[in-house]
């Protein structure tokens, strides 16, 4: 089975700071805030450079689009898609149904991937979305793994899974970084580049301006046998809120682990130990086991806070 591991590259700084070699494909742009400094979906020359750079290296490139667009944002979204199509993009990621309708109307043959903020929860939704040119979906992260399997099997749609990294768990029109600007002294565009973390007893959330992320990193390394058996083959690793230097290594570990286990190899503890070095607040499994997103379920089924 041919696998794809992809990640999101928000800006050129991130692209230049990372090792892209282990990845197959990239989403470019920052879908959570249009004003994010260096946002690849907003700056034509940076978009053009990143697409041609990645394509030269034999990678697939997908443009991501703003997740919560108001009417006033629509024109520039369509312009940015048009540009990306000219630069040879392989697909566009969409989180909003209005944007889906508009892109499908303007570019009927363009491949569309529906992202996690589109709230895809059911097979009937996916079947309906086929009428709009959708070729891949990321079901909402709140789904249990067997729900995702069911959706994939019933709809015949390509399905993408988050394997590792922080989980987006809230998006707002208001920027938290700006709310606390009087305390940090940072305004737009530097404000959201600070590592802002919300803590309460054992709980932790990570904030990036308009986006709230899980404080813990989702880590599925112990469960790759299950993932492989279920037949999933398209995976995302999130690292856009972290130091770009780590993400290439994280991907390499997963690629090695997926390939070894697909060919009958056994789980190695050092994979998880290595990944742990890159995490600041520990691991969780999100919602794949039908439990609170912050919990970690190990391969034996034991639950860890």
């Amino acid at each position, binding site marked *: 089975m041919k696998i794809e591991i992809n990640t999101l590259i928000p800006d050129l700084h991130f692209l230049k700071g990372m090792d892209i070699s282990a990845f197959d494909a990239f989403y470019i742009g920052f879908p959570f805030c249009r004003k994010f400094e260096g946002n690849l979906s907003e700056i034509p020359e940076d978009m053009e450079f990143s697409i041609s750079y990645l394509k030269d290296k034999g990678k697939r490139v997908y443009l991501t689009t703003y997740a*919560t*667009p*108001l*009417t006033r944002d*629509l024109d520039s979204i369509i312009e940015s898609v048009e540009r990306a199509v000219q630069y040879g993009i392989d697909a566009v990621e969409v989180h*909003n*149904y*209005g*944007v*889906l*309708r*508009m892109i499908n109307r303007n570019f009927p043959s363009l491949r569309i991937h529906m992202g996690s*903020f589109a*709230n895809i*929860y*059911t*097979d*009937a*939704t*996916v079947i*309906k979305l086929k009428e709009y040119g959708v070729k891949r979906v990321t079901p*909402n*992260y*709140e789904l*249990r793994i067997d*729900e995702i399997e*069911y*959706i994939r099997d*019933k709809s015949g749609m390509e399905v993408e899974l988050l394997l590792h990294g922080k*989980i987006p*768990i*809230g*998006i*707002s*029109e*208001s920027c*938290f970084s700006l*709310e*606390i600007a009087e*305390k*940090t002294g940072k305004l737009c565009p530097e404000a959201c580049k*600070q*590592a*802002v*973390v*919300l*803590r*309460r*007893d*054992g*709980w932790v*959330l990570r904030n990036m301006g308009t986006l*709230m992320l*899980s404080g813990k990193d989702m880590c599925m390394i112990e469960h790759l046998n299950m993932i492989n058996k279920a037949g999933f083959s398209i995976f995302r690793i999130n690292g856009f809120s972290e130091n770009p230097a780590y993400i290439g290594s994280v991907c390499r570990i997963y690629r090695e682990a997926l390939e070894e286990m697909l060919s009958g190899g056994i789980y190695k503890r050092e994979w998880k130990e290595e990944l742990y070095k890159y995490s600041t607040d520990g691991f969780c499994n999100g*919602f794949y086991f*039908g*439990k*609170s*997103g*912050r919990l970690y379920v190990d391969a034996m089924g034991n639950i860890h806070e």
Partner: protein
Amino acid sequence: MIELLAPGGTKEMAKAVLINGADSVYIGLKGWSRRSAEFELKDEEIEDVVKFAKKMGKKVRIGVNTLPDSREFPIFFVKLDKLISLGIDGLIMTDIGLISRVRKYYPELSIHASVGCNILNIEDVGFYEEMGVSQIVAECKLGFDELQMRKERMRPGIEVLAHGNTCWSYLGKCWMSSYMNYQWHYDEEGKNHFVGSPNRGGLCHRVCLEKWRICCNDIEIDSRRLRNEAFFLLENLTKYIDLGVNTIKIQGREYSTELAVEMVRFYRSFIDSYVSMRERFDLKLWAERLEGLIKWRDAERERRTSYLISLVKN
């Protein structure tokens, strides 16, 4: 004529709000709406309320605004057949797939898109119209201009929440509660209540309203709750009435029946007075009258919030 839509968190509340001036009432189908089971109604209670409303010439809408498990569709359609035979006036929905199936099997049934759809722009409105939705609950954070544009250019009706409190995240785009506590829990009919997930019909623990320690680059700099603001306040509501919004909805299935009744009485007379004497209307008097009600409401809300957070505190 503008419709006043009121909450029916219990059978008693549903009847009381209709008696006290609501044109219609919305009720959650147990396990299938954005509130916990104690504020949703069983089939036989819905039947009772529908009969009651019909006698008064009023309407009942059923909230089915959760994001279910794909495998729960058959349970829902058995229920829907029954609801239709009772004569319900429409559904309030969120899931695109469920909407499209309902539209296919019941082409005449009225479907309103829930606030949980988070419909943000006019292309979004166009998409939901293509799904067969005839009215859209406005996301609270949208401005007047957006709704004005929708009124001028788009067909679906507009519903606004009177004094709608809204969270830091866009409604329908938040998983902070289920990140902290999420449990799969089935009722006797086989419906998963997804405890802890507001989008899936479990309760929201409102963890955003807890005081968080804010750390920036590993240094604690502040301590605060996430923003929670109210929209469609009285002074703006008159503008929306002038614009011609179709429905004003009062939230509050979780409040006491007494409070729900008082809110209905207030907004009923507010709307009627404003519509009948726009030029001579004195907003100030009404704002003063509302003040006490809002305090009452906030006190009930605060108690409920403390309770919801206490369910998940470590």
